[in-house]
């Protein structure tokens, strides 16, 4: 029996826009779900139903107003909705990966070092981290001449693969992915799906947004429907 790695209970998220006469936007109402080791759960729903918002809340990039986000972090449950900043940073360093839609990184750092960075942050020796980064970039079919360059001049698809390499390299037990194959051609899409499937087989619990059917079919075991699962008030 697989282990639950993440459990979300009664999560609510709204934005209070103080500059718009304190307009209150309710985006998530009572979201509950869990994800097991070695399983991939897909979030589905039309644009604007809060799929990306949910992932951001789980990564503690957004603050949820209500509910619990339980994550199994080095053998104990951490509630990310209540955790102190230092704990959140530790969970992100060792347990929780997030592949966002866009790469946001420091300028002047080479692609290879950027990809090696999550391993370096865990204390892995520089040469080991670099050679694992090389293998990752190879599998994701990023041309070798690009490895020593910072990615700010790369194409959208190249940047996306750098982003995916950073998300996968440390073998996080829980992974959040937001449309990982959105800007890729068929061959590169297949390479990405191959790497993500491998992580899943190795036991990673994955919660993701996948816009193409290929990806969903290749990876996903279950679907969480953003509209059907939440009280009607929130949907769109």
């Amino acid at each position, binding site marked *: 029996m697989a282990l639950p790695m993440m459990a979300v209970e009664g999560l609510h998220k709204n*934005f*209070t826009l*103080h500059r718009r006469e304190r307009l209150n936007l309710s985006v998530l109402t009572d979201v509950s779900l869990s994800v097991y080791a070695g399983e991939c759960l897909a979030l589905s729903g039309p644009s604007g139903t809060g799929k990306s918002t949910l992932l951001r809340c789980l990564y503690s990039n*957004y603050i949820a107003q209500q509910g619990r986000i339980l994550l199994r972090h080095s053998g104990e449950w951490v509630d990310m909705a209540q955790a102190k900043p230092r704990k*959140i940073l530790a969970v992100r360093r060792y347990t929780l990966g997030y592949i966002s839609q866009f790469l946001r990184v420091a*300028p002047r750092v080479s692609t290879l070092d950027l990809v090696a960075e999550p391993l370096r942050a865990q204390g892995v020796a520089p040469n080991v981290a670099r050679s694992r980064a090389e293998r990752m970039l190879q599998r994701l079919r990023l041309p070798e001449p690009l490895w020593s360059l910072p990615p700010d001049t790369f194409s959208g698809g190249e940047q996306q693969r750098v982003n995916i390499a950073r998300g996968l390299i440390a073998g996080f037990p829980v992974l959040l992915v937001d449309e990982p194959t959105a800007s890729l051609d068929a061959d590169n899409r297949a390479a990405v799906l191959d790497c993500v499937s491998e992580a899943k087989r190795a036991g990673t619990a994955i919660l993701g947004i996948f816009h193409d059917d290929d990806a969903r079919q290749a990876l996903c075991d279950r679907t969480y429907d953003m509209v059907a699962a939440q009280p009607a008030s929130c949907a769109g």
Partner: protein
Amino acid sequence: MDDRPLMSADSVTCRFRGTTACRDVSLDVYAGEVLGIVGESGAGKSTLLHCLAGAVQPSEGTVTYADAKGHDHAIHGLSESALRQLSRGDWGFVHQSPYDGLRPHISAGGNVAEPLLRCGETRYASLRAAARHWLAEVELDPERLDDPVRTFSGGMQQRVQLARNLVTQPRLLFLDEPTGGLDVSVQARLLDLIRQLASELEVAVVLVTHDLAVVRLLAHRLAVMRQGEVVEQGVTDQVLDDPQAPYSQLLVASELRS
């Protein structure tokens, strides 16, 4: 990850002649971590920084520093000589203007080596070797060791200042707008350097700036100050992407426009 802070401010208030420069500020600084402090000019950021570094006496509240042996010191209760010892050996302070942190008429090497000299190193060869080493670390040509620092460009002077503050291998580094007044590409180089040094040397860094792009790049945690008060603090990307306080929302929105 050590979970005891290296430095803690507890309800610190600084009043000068009727104005309150900072009010009831509490924050913690940890080894290997960059804490960013942002806010508009006049928000009390620099006063707070000087207060943390022992240079400004708080009207209320305490600042506690845990030394390398794990002993706590309430820094504003220390004798002048004990405080001087900490600020020379354990801490570094990089000022906004290189002229506040350097001696322009002496050589770059002299500027870098001087803190070591004050810490008791007197061998000429070691001082020169250290100066060379740290000039190279901040990506300056060690061959310019003997050039007066006033002949360097602004960005280079900031790097000399950084080297001068690293030579004693501090545990805690205070940075006050370290890239203010530098053009963008020079800024990026300096920031990248600070980022690398912080993580490799495991120093704690307190970084004051009004530039949100700078903290996004460097800071693990962020505090937002307004009119002397910390209105919000948390993980940097959270504060910038989902600001809760009205003032933080305003700050982030005006950054996006520029």
